[in-house]
């Protein structure tokens, strides 16, 4: 799916129920606006020149020493 193919309304219809949320007609324009914005932000992320075949994430889980 290209960057121009994102259909926020179809996304809302498909996903809302899986999250247990209802998006009313009144809420839809605002939700649509923010989904479009998030999609644009993701396009910026996709374009960042992160070296391929690496997976270094910001959060690192560090198990603690056992308390004695």
């Amino acid at each position, binding site marked *: 799916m290209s960057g121009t193919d994102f259909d926020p309304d179809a*996304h809302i219809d498909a996903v809302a129920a899986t999250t*247990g*949320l209802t998006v009313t007609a009144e809420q839809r324009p605002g939700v649509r606006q923010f989904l479009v914005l998030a999609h644009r932000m993701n396009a*910026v*992320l996709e*374009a960042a020149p992160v070296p391929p075949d690496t997976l270094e994430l910001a959060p690192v889980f560090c198990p603690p020493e056992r308390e004695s």
Partner: protein
Amino acid sequence: MTIRSYLTATEIAEAVRRGHIRAVDIVRFHLDRISALNPVLNAYTDVVAERALARAASIDIRRQGGESLGPLAGVPFAVKNLFDIAGVTTRAGSAINRDNPPAPRDGELIRRLEAADAILLGGLNMGEYAYDFTGENVHDGNCRNPHDPDHMPGGSSSGSGSATAAGLAPISLGSDTNGSIRVPSSLCGIFGLKPTYGRLTRHGSFPFVDSLDHLGPFARSVTDLALAYDIMQGPDPRDTGCANRVREPVTPDLDQGIGGLRIAAAGGFFNTNGLPEAGAAVSAASRALNVLHGVDVPGAEAGRAAAFIITNAESAAFHRQRLRTRANDFDPDTRDRFLAGSMLPAGWLVRAHQVRRWYLQQVMELFQEVDILIAPAVPFTAPRIGQKTMMLRGEEQAVRPNLGLFTQPVSCIGLPVAAVPVDTGSAMPIGVQVIAPPWREDLALRVARYLERKGVARAAEPKGI
């Protein structure tokens, strides 16, 4: 000593410790000022007058008994209403939280400040659940800018910016996830500190985005800012994001000056072309610091996008149950962001965390060549309350998200920032970001102090009240 408006924390503590003024009189003065000005500014949502007066009386008795008082003796302070205050419900700018029981105990940073003999005056207004840069709040009413009450104070720590600017609390505390200390500091013309991510414990505060939330102080002078910050430092295993670092006080070296520091102006994403007010602030600070060159901050746009996605996804997940059962009790603007955030694909969030790590690595390389970056804090001075759009680089753009344009990429990677109000002669205040490498709050505050001593940075007394 005569009690007057805008005494600094340092002045108050010195006078109380020496017995030149009573803590009770300082507290009464501030409570009277809150009564007079809060109906206009709407900075405070909760005032704990009885508690404050009792604590002040206790301090005065200890002083009379010959006891040595703490470094913030008698200094009034207030906190954004996402901090737990014992006996007060932690509203976090919402209507929904009002149904929660009162907090059983104070948040840890309140406890540390009061252990230094500061005195809590109350809770401060904020944007709903901290997802805000304006200071508008449909539940508790809009907070207002003391320099001109028809204008925004900025957010989401709106009450903190407004109260400290208006002399209603020499020190206040706020939170900053994407700019919520730095934006109100700049729009209200005071100093603010967003420390390194993980520096100050968040235990006893209501969260917004665990990956990005920072807590920090506001003040009218760099000395006050540094003093509050030093007192609040120290590890706390109850906050899983709090680093296990010993206290590293900055106050002793505050007046060391800028000799030997490599200071550059941030360009690229942070350029101020078409933003005359922001440009004037950066230019004034850069001239005073003898900044000779600018540097691009690699990956800043991607960093901003990463912070956006992480903020949207994490906060939405946190509020999911409230969205299911009480959607109509949210501010509609905030609610629709959270609803959208609930539907983001998992891959977008993973990519955001990956880019955040990559961007941090790029900037750490930059910090091999540079010790301090000077960047704009906000694109423009405070918009009018209710204003939805602004001219930004010749185009009409939305006010709300663009207020955090320059702050979001910096907090994305947890860098420490001193927000510094710069005197540009503009009608409304504006500030700059003094950005340091991780864990070098000392450098950011040294530069802020230098700008203050040169007369370039100062917290002007507001004329709007």
